[in-house]
């Protein structure tokens, strides 16, 4: 009985909307008394009567109707003690800002105790949601129509289905049209219609799969078969998308590893200096970003861009200090260098803890880096990771050019291959040492700037990357920038491939053990330096 009633109500409602839409330009504003009467009708005890009042509001074709319904749905349509209807603008706290429901004039703050909410139940909530969605489909604003169409997936019923055909043919936005077609197809599929199944074949939306599953278990063998084959092709498609997603996450993780390790590939790989404070240089880069954002409040994007040179500079200067202060005294004693720079790393960590804070700092992600690139219903790629990936490649190419094309690169290679000979030829080896170390350290700072967008910025940031970085450099082959790139990216991908069945920690352990074993097999890494020089 009750169900029947609602059904009738629903029909009337849709009809009214359709009519209203026909005369969309003529949407009107009812007089205040009429509007007050429409709202009065809501404030009754029976939910059935409230349903009719909602229908009445829709049929009134008042342009404020959508706002009223939305407020009613959210529980923000309330009544004051003197019987005035208000819309609560923000119902947080004890005193709420409110606006008059009829005039939309702000009325200042009111205590929640002086307000009386107009209650609804779940059935009404559903009715309201559908009603608002349908209203929105006629909205002149394309965003609203898109959102509404999105919400309709899997929520269409028989009456709406009839309407959708006309809506689809009249819609000029492609996205809305596609969504509506899908929504209709889901409805058709759920009712065992072959046409819908055919349409859903390429859809990756989860609701489409639910509908197809139902159809696959339906009575009609032809439809069931079609649904099954559609499901199979969707499954295939999903697998592909999941593969792409894993690859993306893997490359993203890999790009982080490359960024963290590439500076080390210069200082350790090319110069042969073991700098255990490399991780802390990364940390300093990240803190530089945080500092920049503190200096330029409200402009996180600009701060981030400025952090790139600033982070490089800060890390490079600290690097020079480490080189001059410690490393130059330990030339040719790699193990002692390792210990001394480890000491430096402890000091830097503690310095940050004492001067700034032992707690993590938040670095804001600028708007143009947040959000994600939506490829389809099953695949969306987060923008910040994409930017970092691009940045890693940019840094890599830059370093490659410096090492291959510049005078500094030439001198670095000369000094590392034969120090005495290079000096004899007039190369100032000490200056080259300083510059190279500064370059490697600066790149660590760049890594920090990028990492601040992906992870927490805290005193332990560097520590978490130092072992991974060394692993990447050794795995790739010491002294080989390409090796570092390939090693970093492939380790990232391997890690992501393992994660689904091993879990994050175990995947990491497996990767570490894999590298340990790999180094036993090929002590010179993936791309070893060959020839006589390497034999010594």
């Amino acid at each position, binding site marked *: 009985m009750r169900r029947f009633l609602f059904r009738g109500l629903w029909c009337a409602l849709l009809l009214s909307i359709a009519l209203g839409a026909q005369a969309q330009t003529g949407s009107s504003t009812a007089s205040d008394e009429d509007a007050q009467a429409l709202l009065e009708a809501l404030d009754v005890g029976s939910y059935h009567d409230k349903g009719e009042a909602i229908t009445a509001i829709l049929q009134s074709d008042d342009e404020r109707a959508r706002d009223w319904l939305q407020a009613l749905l959210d529980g923000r349509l309330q009544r004051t003690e003197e019987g005035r209807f208000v819309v609560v603008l923000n119902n947080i706290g004890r005193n709420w800002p409110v606006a008059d429901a009829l005039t939309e004039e702000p009325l200042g703050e009111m205590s929640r105790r002086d307000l009386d909410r107009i209650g609804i139940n779940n059935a009404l909530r559903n009715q309201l949601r559908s009603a608002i969605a349908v209203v929105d489909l006629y909205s002149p604003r394309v965003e609203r129509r898109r959102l509404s169409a999105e919400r309709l997936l899997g929520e269409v019923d028989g009456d709406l289905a009839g309407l959708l055909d006309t809506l689809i043919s009249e819609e000029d936005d492609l996205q809305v049209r596609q969504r509506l077609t899908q929504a209709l197809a889901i409805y058709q599929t759920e009712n065992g219609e072959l046409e819908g199944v055919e349409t859903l074949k390429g859809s990756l939306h989860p609701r489409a799969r639910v509908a197809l599953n139902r159809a696959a278990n339906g009575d009609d063998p032809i439809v069931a078969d079609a649904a099954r084959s559609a499901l199979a092709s969707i499954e295939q498609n999903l697998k592909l998308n999941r593969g792409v997603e894993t690859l993306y996450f893997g490359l993203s993780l890999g790009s982080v590893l490359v960024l963290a390790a590439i500076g080390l590939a210069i200082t350790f790989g090319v110069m042969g200096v073991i700098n255990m404070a490399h991780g802390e240089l990364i940390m300093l880069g990240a803190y530089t970003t945080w500092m920049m954002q503190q200096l330029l409040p409200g402009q996180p994007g600009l701060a981030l861009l400025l952090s790139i040179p600033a982070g490089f500079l800060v890390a490079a200067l600290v690097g020079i200090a480490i080189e001059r202060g410690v490393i130059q005294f330990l030339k040719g004693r790699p193990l002692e260098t390792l210990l001394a720079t480890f000491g430096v790393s402890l000091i830097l960590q503690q310095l940050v803890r004492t001067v700034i804070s032992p707690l993590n700092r938040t670095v804001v992600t600028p708007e143009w880096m947040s959000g994600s690139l939506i490829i389809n219903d099953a695949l969306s790629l987060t923008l910040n990771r994409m930017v970092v990936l691009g940045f890693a490649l940019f840094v890599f190419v830059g370093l490659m050019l410096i090492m291959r094309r510049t005078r500094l690169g030439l001198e670095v290679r000369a000094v590392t291959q034969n120090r005495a000979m290079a000096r004899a030829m007039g190369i100032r080896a000490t200056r080259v040492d300083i510059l190279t170390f500064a370059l490697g350290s600066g790149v660590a700072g760049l890594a920090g700037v990028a990492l601040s967008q992906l992870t927490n910025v805290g005193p332990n940031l560097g520590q978490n990357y130092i072992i991974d970085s060394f692993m990447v450099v050794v795995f790739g082959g010491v002294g080989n920038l390409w090796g570092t790139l390939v090693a970093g990216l492939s380790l990232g991908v391997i890690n992501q491939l393992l994660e689904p069945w091993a879990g994050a920690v175990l995947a990491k352990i497996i990767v570490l053990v894999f590298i340990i074993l790999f180094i036993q097999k090929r002590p010179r890494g993936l791309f070893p330096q*060959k*020839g*006589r020089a390497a*034999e010594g």
Partner: protein
Amino acid sequence: MSLLQSLKARDRVFDFMAPTASPVDVRHGPILYMEDVTVSFDGFKAINNLNLTIDDGELRCIIGPNGAGKTTMMDIITGKTRPTEGSVWFGSRHNLLQMNEPEIASLGVGRKFQKPTVFEALSVFDNLELAMAANKGIFPTLTARMTGEIQDRIDEVLSIIGLTALRFQPAGILSHGQKQWLEIGMLLMQRPRLLLVDEPVAGMTEQEMERTAELLVSLAGKQSVVVVEHDMGFVRSIARKVTVLHQGSVLAEGSMDQVSSDPKVVEVYLGADEEAA
């Protein structure tokens, strides 16, 4: 069954009954036999189709311009570098390509490096003790005791190399020439069948050179000695047979006089001079 029968045939010599002290089979003459050996690093052929035979007890000098592959050749013989192609036999029984450095050394191949390498933190005495031919396994080494016999042998070598007075000094304080001698002394303690000596007189005085020449000549006969040297005067003073290497293969072989009159050799050495000039 067949093993038992063959065991009864007393006139045959079995591998396992042969003396283990000197397993090298030199009945056919050569102690070292290298055939068609090629080594390439990244496409660059450091050794190219090298053929070389050293007879038992022979003293052979190997000369050649820089980059001719002399050191690489020694690396191959001692197991440090594996050739890309070819075969290397020690005597007619031991395939050196299937053995590692310590095995080859225990078999009786001693090597002196181009740059003298001694154990600088250890005393001269200890250096010689470690080099001595003995069981070099872990537990024999751990429990090894100094005996009078060993002491005497070390003393004997110490007097040969003239370092008796410095016996308890760490090897690190020795002069360049003394280190060269100590290294030769270590080779003597090893009692090798084949000695590979890379530039033994570099950094030595005229007198030291003479003594070295004497020593090497006196060793030949009992042991086979292969000397790689740049100093032509020194080579002329000791060599009976000389091999000239060029671009990784043998260019000429024969007595010093024969070789130095060979037009190909002249061209290689003079040609190189012209380029350098």
